């Protein structure tokens, strides 16, 4: 466990702020930047880095969902159903993380970070909405107000088993690696399951709090979560994602996406190399 100093807390606060604002601007969550920094640059054990990152993931999920609750973008029913799968995946991931070597987790992180970069670069967006507010959305579908079309739109959920499978994998990787897992769920829900991107993102962000808690509790119980460092990271990420969302509208995200994809490929290679030693 790293020794807490005021300098270390300040460094983690700043890194949290940068990760949080990048996460908010790019829509990928900040964990994928925070974990490699804590593990590779500050030299924290992987489990300690993942535990700190998971607390920031929970805080982001709670504050983002508190802000979007009531806007009908979060599909609560679908979220609660898929949480059964993400929490199970996360519980198993948290247990597995205690048993496998750090080098294996680093290699897995390398793979996932490269995958995140690819998804970010190629992200497809399917609209998936039906411009008819009277059509029946089914048990799991929903309606929401879409500004682009200026009215209520409807969507139906398709291929539910795929959504459940993707949620399980996302939950598993979330607590193994200390990331939110939205980057796995959102493209799957959007491309395969008929859910519009914004509803998929809001629902995923809503689920992530419960998912990450199932994993974070295990790290916490094992004494791998240092409260002072978690506090610094959470406050940093909160500040970062708040400013990212606030000023994101004015920034050109395209160039940033390309640059951050490059950063992710580098982080991926570094994790992979470190894990190979």
């Amino acid at each position, binding site marked *: 466990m790293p020794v807490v100093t005021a300098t270390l*807390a300040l460094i983690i606060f700043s890194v949290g702020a940068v990760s949080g604002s990048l996460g908010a601007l790019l829509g990928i969550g900040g964990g994928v930047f925070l974990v490699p920094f804590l593990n590779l640059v500050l030299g924290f054990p992987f489990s300690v880095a993942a535990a700190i990152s998971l607390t920031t993931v929970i805080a982001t999920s*709670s504050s983002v969902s508190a802000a979007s609750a009531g806007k009908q973008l979060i599909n609560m029913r679908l979220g609660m*159903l898929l949480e*059964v799968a993400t929490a199970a995946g996360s519980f198993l991931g*948290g247990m597995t993380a205690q048993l496998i070597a750090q080098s294996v987790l680093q290699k897995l992180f390398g793979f996932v970070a490269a995958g995140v970069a690819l998804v970010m670069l190629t992200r497809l967006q399917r609209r998936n909405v039906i411009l008819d507010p009277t059509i029946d959305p089914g048990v799991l579908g929903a309606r929401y107000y879409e500004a682009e079309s200026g009215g209520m739109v409807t969507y139906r959920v398709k291929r539910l088993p795929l959504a459940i499978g993707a949620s399980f994998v996302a939950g598993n990787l979330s607590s193994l690696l200390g990331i939110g897992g939205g980057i796995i769920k959102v493209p799957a829900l959007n491309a395969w399951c008929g859910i519009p991107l914004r509803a998929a993102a809001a629902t995923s962000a809503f689920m992530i709090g*419960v998912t990450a*808690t199932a994993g974070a509790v295990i790290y916490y119980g094992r004494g791998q979560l240092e409260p002072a460092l*978690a506090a610094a990271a*959470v406050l940093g990420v909160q500040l970062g994602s708040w400013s990212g969302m606030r000023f994101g509208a004015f920034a050109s995200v395209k160039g940033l996406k390309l640059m951050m994809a490059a950063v992710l490929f580098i982080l991926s290679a570094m994790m992979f190399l470190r894990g190979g030693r």
Partner: protein
Amino acid sequence: MKLERLIGVVLRAGVVLSSTCFTVGLVVYLLAGYTDLSRLILQTGVIVLLATPVARVVVSIGQYVSERDWTFAALTLIVLLELMASAAAALVLNRRL
């Protein structure tokens, strides 16, 4: 929708409370060092943070039960049991390893 608003209130309260504990705890730490007091405040922040999604699940179960929506009450109860299993596993692992 009633449940969404209720959940929004629970989540916001959790965020405000845990962030307040974190801020106060870090200030006390910077002024007085890593004492029992700063440690206690920071630990409380972590526990509130971890309890927030759990509270959100509990509130959802209550709402689905009051709506007699048994399918979703059962699904949400499973999620709560999974969270409890994680907490139990953490305690067991803490003793064994």
